């Protein structure tokens, strides 16, 4: 029997309490679980719809016909500079068009920026607002949406339940559209970390500070929150905008790093491990990827991830990092 996402969330709710009671041990190595991800060359002015459509079709387990879909870009901030902070609008629109061609049902785009109350301003200044209007796509401000709760299925943090926007709870499929960036607290932000923006500011504030402090030990809180959110929400697909990424002091103050690729797949930890490898990092050095691997969100050892599409080596880069994250490169 096929179980849709909403049914899955209902049936796994009871498991959340057990996970909370049992606690979770932070693994230090990949589990050895195989994963899958696809890497493909891309440019913002290229034929992104065909590229993404071809990528989506490499994952026959992904069923979108008639489903309501929420696309969650990384919409963070805008700046007078040209720093590439946000998922490029062309990636968002092309993903929506590709899903439409696969007969998806209603497609919404939504995000809840962690620093900005006024999402309309971020939308307009980032160019995403105009792009969505042209593509006839509706946007939902996830920070100010009506909310409901789900038990925290991950159970790593002390949050017994997670408040989530009604739009997230009612979607059949959530797609994380991330930007390939370094992150000054988590090492890298990819499709899993992007899910922080699913959490409603009207509950958690700006920044969503409690999520930075709800775990133990404190240094692992942000990673534990990321894994809890992804394990609870279960986004069904992820795409990393690696056409132009950000290196150095990401996710806001870094510099542009052109890479020229997209990474995508239906196992977010594997997608992110592939993205991290392209950035020149050892995926198992990123704590939330280890949590994701252990939680069944996809294997994170690039050697045993079934890589579809193009070879990672074609795009492998050495993203500059802050000194505190030099260890990400160590085997």
């Amino acid at each position, binding site marked *: 029997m096929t179980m849709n996402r909403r049914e899955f969330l209902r049936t796994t709710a009871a498991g959340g309490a057990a996970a909370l009671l049992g606690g979770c041990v932070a693994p230090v190595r990949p589990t050895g679980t195989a994963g899958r991800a696809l890497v493909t060359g891309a440019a913002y002015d290229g034929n992104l719809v065909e590229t993404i459509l071809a990528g989506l079709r490499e994952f026959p387990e992904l069923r979108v016909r008639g489903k309501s879909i929420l696309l969650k870009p990384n919409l963070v901030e805008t700046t007078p500079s040209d720093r590439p902070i946000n998922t490029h609008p062309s990636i968002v629109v092309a993903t929506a068009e590709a899903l439409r061609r696969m007969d998806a049902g209603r497609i919404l785009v939504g995000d809840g920026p962690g620093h*900005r*109350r006024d999402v*309309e301003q971020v939308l307009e200044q980032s160019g995403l607002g105009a792009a969505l209007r042209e593509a006839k796509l509706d946007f939902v401000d996830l920070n100010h949406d009506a*909310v409901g709760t789900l038990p925290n299925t991950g159970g790593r943090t002390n949050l017994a339940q997670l408040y989530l926007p009604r739009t997230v709870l009612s979607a059949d499929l959530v797609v994380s559209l991330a930007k390939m960036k370094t992150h000054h607290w988590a090492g890298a932000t990819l499709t899993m970390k992007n899910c922080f923006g699913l959490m409603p500011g009207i509950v958690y*504030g700006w920044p969503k500070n409690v999520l930075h*402090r709800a775990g133990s030990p404190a240094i692992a809180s942000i990673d534990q929150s990321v894994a809890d959110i992804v394990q609870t929400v279960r986004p069904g697909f992820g795409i990393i905008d690696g056409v132009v990424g950000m290196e150095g002091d990401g996710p806001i103050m870094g510099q542009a790093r052109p890479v020229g690729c997209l990474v995508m797949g239906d196992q977010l930890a594997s997608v992110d491990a592939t993205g991290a490898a392209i950035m020149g990092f050892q995926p198992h050095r990123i704590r939330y990827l280890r949590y994701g691997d252990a939680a069944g969100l996809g294997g994170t050892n690039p050697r045993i991830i079934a890589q579809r599409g193009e070879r990672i080596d074609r795009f492998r880069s050495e993203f500059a990092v802050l000194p505190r994250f030099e260890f990400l490169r160590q085997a």
Partner: protein
Amino acid sequence: MTDWISTSLDLLRSTVQDDGGWPYYASGGSAVEPTAMAVAALHAHQSDAPRVEAGLRFILAMQQPDGSLLPQAGQSQGTGLGMAAGIVLAAHPASRAAADRVADHALSWKPETAPRTEDISNDGSLIGFSWIPGVFSWVEPTAYGVLLMERTGRGDHPRTVEARRVLRDRAVPAGGWNYGNSIVLGSALEAVVMPTALVLLALGSDRKGREVTGGVKYLEQEAAAGGGHSPLSLGWMNLALRARNREGVSADHLGDALKSSPRIAVSPWHHAMALLAVAPLERIPFVVGGAS
């Protein structure tokens, strides 16, 4: 009257919900913050007293036994947004006692503190106001907290005094404020319109401080630059500048911004803020101490 003002007032009248509240956007349910803004806007324009009273009743219905205000149905805990609504409650005699309870509750939360570190330049030992219990003080709730304390006669409370210090401490080096960090890991962060305006309103009696002059200069630059700002940000910007006898953007500019996207065009939150931006200052609860 500028055409969009009457249109916006009509929109507020037509989007009130059965429970007396207003949603952020056309499709949502009633929430405390947009209701407070709509109440303030209608009151400031001396329009529709029955809807003002109904809106106040909705906000009061969201008050919990501890004095906090739930942001909307479905949540179990008040947040810093309750302080924003409390500022509006304090402006009406019938809800003044409820505003006092919001203020007392806000004072009962003690945000987390932390010593200053090399990573973050803020003086984390200072206590302002937080979004929710158990986290640090941030700029927007601290600004709301200061305004609420001023409005409820607690302007000299030690927490209010320290909260003003928090706000000055969080100014970014180039002038203005963002959500609440100025320099992180050696990078000077950038200012944002809405928090900058809120802080300038909260520091209403401070006219000369370096942080204040930097914030005013930032807002004036943004006003002169023009495009890209929503009615929400433009509204706060204009209030803050007008309260300091400075010019913001024109009423026509605000009207154009209200038409900038289909979602904004029907958002009670954005329309209420635009209406406040052009209302008489003495009728706006977020302006304390009078213009000078």
